[in-house]
């Protein structure tokens, strides 16, 4: 069993997201340790992009701050290499295709593997376009995570059957960001996936409170939390380690009840 699947084998999986390099790489390194210590089963590291079209204002602003502070793929890969020996949870990059394309797809996947990264999530690379990255990912044993959305309908079976690691289920329409009320779409998506495959389903987009996380964990295998962590990090700057740790721990406890 690969490392990502393994992370789903021991109960409900907590998957926090932070934007790499916001406010700086030192903080990112500390945050990765803090999230792991708080019980993260898998961690998504956002590689900042100038125009992240799937993100809401919180993560877009974090990307801008990180870019302004000089964050690059290369620097983030160094951070990953440094933390890798001390963090057993799988680490994934979430970014857009252009920075990867410019870096060079083969070179990028090779370097990701060398640094011990486990997988990639690329929101602007839908099923039909992933071929360009899938080959090099397979060669390097990196998992390219597929996404399904409330609008995927008859695409769900095709995508789910051909996915690796876990399936990223987008909870609701729109972009990333905290939502007061979660739609019931995610539950429906997970049910449809279950009909065709047993791949683990993690739900993301809009989950912002421990209670919402617990609700999602009642039907999904994993819970992805991004914007609320990034917002806490933004509010506290370099002093964000403790507040992020505390919030992450609360979420972990909430979903651990299943």
């Amino acid at each position, binding site marked *: 069993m690969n490392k990502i699947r393994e992370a789903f084998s021991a109960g409900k999986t907590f998957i926090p997201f932070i934007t790499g390099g916001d406010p700086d790489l030192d903080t990112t390194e500390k945050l990765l340790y803090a999230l792991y210590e708080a019980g993260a089963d898998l961690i998504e590291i956002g590689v900042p*992009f*100038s*125009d992240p*079209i*799937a993100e*809401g*204002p919180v993560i*877009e602003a974090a990307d*801008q701050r990180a*870019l302004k502070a000089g964050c*690059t*793929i290369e620097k983030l890969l160094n951070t990953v290499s440094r933390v890798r020996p001390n963090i057993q949870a799988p680490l994934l990059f979430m970014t*857009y*295709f*252009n*920075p*990867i*394309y*410019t*870096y060079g797809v083969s070179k990028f996947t090779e370097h990701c593997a060398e640094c011990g990264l486990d997988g990639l999530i690329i*929101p*602007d*690379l*839908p*099923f*039909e*376009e992933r*071929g*360009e990255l899938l080959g090099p990912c397979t060669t390097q044993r990196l998992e390219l995570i597929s*996404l*399904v*959305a*409330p*609008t*995927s*309908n008859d*695409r769900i079976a095709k*995508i789910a059957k051909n996915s690796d690691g876990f399936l990223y289920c*987008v909870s609701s*329409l*729109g*972009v990333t960001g905290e939502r007061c009320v979660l739609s019931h779409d995610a539950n429906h998506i997970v049910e449809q996936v279950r009909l065709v495959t047993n791949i683990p389903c993690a739900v993301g987009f809009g989950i912002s409170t421990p209670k919402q996380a617990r609700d999602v964990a009642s039907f999904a295998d994993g819970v992805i939390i991004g914007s609320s962590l990034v917002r806490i990090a933004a509010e506290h700057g370099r002093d964000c380690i403790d507040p992020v740790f505390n919030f992450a721990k609360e979420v972990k406890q909430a979903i651990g009840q299943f």
Partner: protein
Amino acid sequence: MGSGRFGIYGGQYIPETLMSAVLELEQAYEHWSRDLDFVNELNTLLGQYAGRPSLLYHAKKMTADLGGAKIYLKREDLNHTGSHKINNVLGQALLAKKMGKRRLIAETGAGQHGVATATVAALMSMECEIFMGSEDMKRQALNVYRMELLGAKVNRVLTGTATLKDAVNATLREWAGRMADTHYCLGSVMGPHPFPAMVRNFQTVIGREIREQMIAIDGKLPDAIIACVGGGSNAIGSFYEFISDEQVELIGCEAAGKGIDSPENAATITNGAVGVFHGMKSYFCQDAFGQIAPVHSISAGLDYPGIGPEHANLYDRGRARYVPITDQEAVEAFEYLAKTEGIIPALESAHAVAYTTKYAPLLKQDQTIVVTLSGRGDKDVAAVARYKGVSASE
């Protein structure tokens, strides 16, 4: 690889949430573009509402002054709403209606596409929201009011560089949140498939008319067609009909802003690199790390860091060439056409006029150039006055 490719360019690089919307659009377009009633309805609107065919005007004074090729101006500026944008908007709005959508959203840079969309939304009793960078809203304040007058809501985009690319980001995000009743009326030959091919097809009326008019007036095809290129819709609309006529030279004029060696330009082919952005693989102005560059042009409509994928392919194939024109050259051409022919072109179109003033003298007198005047310049008078340091309030 997904559908909608021009060589290696194009594709559908968009979030999964939007895939169903573009696939639905692709199917609907395939269906309705072959429906005779749809085609007739669109042609009637183009004739009776937009005012087509647009004139092909022999610019005699300009021809005499430059002393080379005979120059014809394709007067898209005379269309209703003052630019070529209406051709595409009428097509897409009609299609959206057939698809059961009741709301149009669109990005705009200079405001030409926003005004065209707001206009057609009013005509077809559709709700309309326009997304516009706050920088562009400052530059084109009158067009903002114009859109509101037409019943549209104009949303101020403050993110990133607060210009056209950010307006596209905002419209894509809006669409991802609401697509059941909403059509994204994209304004250029860019974005994910089917937009580049569909918008081109709605704009090819320009080139078809150029062919008919040139044969009628001159008895032969032009030697060169010159058009400005931001995303590139008026250019591809002018070029497409002539791609297989190898003897017709196709020239796109892109915005060099303050110069191609300055950081403030939008010359995508000259300075850009191949990448993936806004749903398509094409050339983009970007840094060494693949971050999209903040670009600049005096014309808000060319102030975009990418170019349509079909242009990228025409460039790679050597079938079209793309030349950079600076702000200064565009402003000079703006004034030149006003004084020489009594026609004030849009600053975007002035880029094509500028290259014509350089190129026409190099051709023989029995050769002809068609220049597409994509829009009228009324909207730019205040901006040019500002550029020249003249105080003019509207």
